[in-house]
């Protein structure tokens, strides 16, 4: 066997006949990665052949001619590669990838940026007079509760794969008087979820400046997507004398220690 590992490496531009042959082969391979791979292997092969021939005393030009002749028909080689790596599938895969990206982007825009419009769709999907609470349906207040005073919600917090922030939809955050006479605190929170991180269970509690502690109810407000949704948070029976509240979300994993905190102040309008 003749090997030429010890021969000095030469660039293809020194051997124009080899370059011409490779150009003819590549002309039949429209899929660029396949064309590049074919070019590299064929060039290496012809380089080996030329170096063996020149080492035996053949003139460089004649060695090139013989190396090209030994390779065979460039059209036959190029078409054989084209059959193995058809450009049609290459183009189709790019097209499908692009279409999937457009659909994904449109879905995210629909669910996140157009929250108000999405909520209207949710109203159509949910029966009137009911609200989704933890995926169950609960009766909605038949009479519009009386707004006693608005509540400003502030802050932003991260909790594992979730990010919590005051929601923009869902009506005025505030203290309401229900038809039963109870005082209800209600506000909405936008929850963004990073789907590439492990989801975790969440716990929530609410305290006020008077030292009272409440167990808030959390309902899904509007449609949810894989990356964001809006949660309606309400607590019945809050102390109407309280001037500020603290909403704390934590992990249901007892030892994680992570918390996200939002602050609420009465008498202020949601910024």
């Amino acid at each position, binding site marked *: *066997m*003749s*090997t*030429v*590992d*010890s*021969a*000095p*490496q030469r660039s293809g531009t020194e051997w124009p006949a080899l370059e011409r042959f490779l150009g003819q*082969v590549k002309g039949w391979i429209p899929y660029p990665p396949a064309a590049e*791979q*074919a070019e*590299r*292997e*064929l060039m*290496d*092969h012809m380089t*080996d*052949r030329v170096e063996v021939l020149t080492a035996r005393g053949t003139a460089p030009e004649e060695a090139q001619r013989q190396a090209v002749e*030994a*390779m*065979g*028909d*460039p059209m*036959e*080689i190029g078409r*054989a*590669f084209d*059959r*193995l*790596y058809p450009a049609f599938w290459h183009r189709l895969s790019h097209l499908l990838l692009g279409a999937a990206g457009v659909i994904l982007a449109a879905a995210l825009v629909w669910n996140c940026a157009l929250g108000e419009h999405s909520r209207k769709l949710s109203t159509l999907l949910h029966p009137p007079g009911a609200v989704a609470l933890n995926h169950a349906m609960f009766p909605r207040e038949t009479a519009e509760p009386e707004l006693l005073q608005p509540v400003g919600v502030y802050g932003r917090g991260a909790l594992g794969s979730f990010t919590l922030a005051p929601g923009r939809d869902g009506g005025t955050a505030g203290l309401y008087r229900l038809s039963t006479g109870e005082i209800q605190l209600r506000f909405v929170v936008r929850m963004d979820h990073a789907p590439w991180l492990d989801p975790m269970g969440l716990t929530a509690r609410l305290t006020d400046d008077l030292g009272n502690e409440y167990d808030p109810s959390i309902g899904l407000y509007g449609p949810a997507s894989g990356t964001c949704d809006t949660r309606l948070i309400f607590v019945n029976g809050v102390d109407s004398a309280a001037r500020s509240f603290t909403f704390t979300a934590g992990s249901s994993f007892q030892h994680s220690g992570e918390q996200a905190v939002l602050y609420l102040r009465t008498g202020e309008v949601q910024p």
Partner: protein
Amino acid sequence: MAADKSLLSGSTSLLVLSLLAGGDKYGYEMISILEARSDKTFTMKEGTLYPVLHNLEQAGAVRAYDKEAPSGRNRRYYHITKKGIRLLSDKRREWKAFSNMVNAIVAEGEAAPQPV
């Protein structure tokens, strides 16, 4: 004497897999061994070797990898896989059955009386 190329066309995969069964090789190395072992009887067009190798790679019969030669030049080596070894075994059986059949017919032709 150079062999009829059409005899080679259907058996290139068998030859390639047989060569790789003896160890990893790059394209030019395979051609050189083929020429040396057959005393240059096999004069296949060398460029057609590479589509055959890529076809075997797509079928999972061989695996390609780059390795730097002592000269510093990177070469693309081919390694026969377990699937390739099974394919080689099948192709060997096919080839033996085919050659036995051809030999039998050729021998029968030699024994037949010549036309006057």
